């Protein structure tokens, strides 16, 4: 097995390759993730963008190893952390990566926190268990972490229960807990979706500051094209459990190379533009128990052509020679406008 502290040079911090996850339900199989691949470099912010049901959360849970089997089955692919393949590891070994190397925060902090324990104790518990700290040291460190995520009067608030915090403050508590073991990768799944816009701005700023301070890789999962544009270095666009486009963030907004991305950009209203006509994508996101043949986007695609799109699955390929990937047969035409 590879030594995690000393990977070969050039090894990505995190690499997901051809990941497949299905939910086996009574009478049907939901193909939630269908050959997802991406990499995350040290210190990078990668956005995973997609509409609901595109497989963003399930793939993140597969990377974390927190899916429940049954009903979820990881049926293929690899997840490598600094070169070490995690999917095949026995649970005991896998557990040593969770929290310590890869941590995750969620949209709903209430469900991630234990309602009957004081938040300070919950954070301290992580340190007790994983770092073998003494109770006193763990508590001191928990308060430091709460200060680090800018919770005012952290010392006294450590004694409060989750429900005593506002939505934004509770999100901070969850972030403090995720950072307790100083992970190398933080996966943030829609961390600000439930928050008001002014609170969202506070939390995004905090995440950015913390990422800089701690030199983490950040995977930001979101459906919000504005949040992505604001914080990401690179972006992966998901549709029906696969990557349909990936690019450096400015490149993607300036020159989308997939009709789905193009459609999203034309659908989104803007706060900074007057009288903008919206051109929606027709139809709705696909049913994952019956994903369309060929290009999964073809029933909604304004550029689809009978000769290839309904039958031939388009592979994700570099369409500019500079690492801009698109999974569309006619990506060159999309780039051409």
């Amino acid at each position, binding site marked *: 097995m590879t030594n995690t502290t000393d990977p070969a040079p050039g090894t990505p911090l995190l690499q997901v390759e051809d990941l497949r996850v299905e939910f086996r339900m009574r009478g049907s199989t939901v193909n939630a993730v269908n050959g997802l691949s991406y990499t995350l470099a040290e210190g990078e912010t990668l956005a995973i963008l997609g509409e609901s049901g595109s497989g963003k959360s399930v793939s993140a849970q597969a990377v974390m190893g927190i899916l429940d089997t049954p009903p979820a089955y990881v049926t293929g692919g690899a997840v490598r952390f600094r070169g070490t393949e995690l999917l095949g590891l026995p649970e005991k070994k896998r557990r040593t990566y969770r929290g310590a190397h890869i941590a995750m925060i969620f949209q709903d902090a209430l469900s991630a926190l234990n309602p009957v324990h004081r938040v300070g104790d919950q954070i301290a518990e992580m340190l007790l268990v994983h770092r073998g700290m003494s109770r006193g040291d763990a508590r001191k460190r928990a308060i430091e972490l709460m200060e680090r995520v800018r919770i005012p009067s952290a010392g006294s608030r450590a004694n409060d229960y989750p429900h005593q915090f506002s939505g934004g403050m509770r999100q901070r508590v969850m972030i403090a807990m995720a950072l307790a073991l100083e992970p190398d990768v933080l996966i943030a799944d829609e961390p600000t979706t439930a928050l008001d*816009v002014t609170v969202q701005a506070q939390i995004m700023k905090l995440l950015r500051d913390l990422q800089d301070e701690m030199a983490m890789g950040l995977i930001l999962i979101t459906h919000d*094209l*504005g*949040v992505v*544009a604001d914080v990401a270095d690179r972006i992966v666009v998901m549709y029906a459990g696969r990557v349909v486009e990936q690019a450096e963030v400015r490149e993607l907004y300036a020159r989308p190379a997939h009709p789905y991305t193009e459609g999203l950009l034309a659908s989104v209203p*803007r706060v900074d533009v007057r009288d903008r006509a919206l051109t929606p*994508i027709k139809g709705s996101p696909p049913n994952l128990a019956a994903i369309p043949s060929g290009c999964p986007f073809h029933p909604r695609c304004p550029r689809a052509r009978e000769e290839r799109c309904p039958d031939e699955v388009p592979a994700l390929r570099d369409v500019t020679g500079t690492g801009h990937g698109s999974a569309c047969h006619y990506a060159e035409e999309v780039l051409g406008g």
Partner: protein
Amino acid sequence: MADEILQVENLVKHFPLTQGIVFKRQVGQVKAVDGVSFGLRKGETLGLVGESGCGKSTLAKLLMALERPTSGSVRFEDQDVFALSRAELRRLRRRVQMVLQDPYTSLNPRMTVGDIVGEPFAIHGDPEGGRRRRVRELLEVVGLDPDHVNRYPHQFSGGQRQRIGIARALALRPDVIICDEPVSALDVSVQAQVMNLLADLQKEFGLSYVFIAHDLAVVRHISDRVAVMYLGKIVELGDEEQIYDHPTHPYTQALLSAVPVPDPTRQGTPIVLEGDVPSPTNPPSGCRFRTRCWKARDVCATDEPLLQVRAPGGAGDGEDGGTSGSPHPSACHFADEKIVRG
């Protein structure tokens, strides 16, 4: 004003806050809506924006006469809706309809789409030409397949369910539709479909909308005029361009600056507000925004700023006394234009 179909004056709704399980005593009140006035013009869309808890949904219920106000009035075509008899109220309900956020919970899962859309006729009587025909027509108007009348809500996507809700709202040919977060639960591609549909229907049927949402971009897109709410009050009111391109209230400015735009080359610097919205049980004295406002001075704690057009050099001093080049009501002692997006 003659061209206003709905007039809201000094509307107040306080909910009692009680403690104790057996013997309830009132320990305070939640000031959900606290002195709101505006008019809805015929054929326009008035957007109402603000963060959660600022009173938007309570206001919507008051406009529909589903809640009684603590004080103040709502007049529909010059009739006070809270003074109506039951029969008159029923007539009002034909003319003022509502579309809600959650198409998943606002539709009865055990009713067919045909029954859902036709339900208003069961209360108000069948339309000319018969119920069946009108239901099919309505489904077609909102872009659904009329042959799907016998399907159930779960057989439709989120966007289609919102169309069902809109068809039901249109059934009685209303004049006004109160939309409470109608596209918030939808994905962007579908959200755009529903916004375009609402705009088309407005044109076709001459509808007036009150459009409530927390998403500032959505509100800009759909609204002719916009009211910004904070803690139960309107803090700024103007046409869409005045609010978005010439905001004068610090809260509006902070809100606008906090929205990340879908363009990496045009990110502004957000005005990051400290802390959370104070409790509506005990709002700050004077200006309610003062505890989070970077411009607050002593007068803000003592004098409540009224929602009014402020003359240049008015209450403000020379330094920031100038107001907008596009004058409109703002409830700030130091109202002053600041371009945050442009």
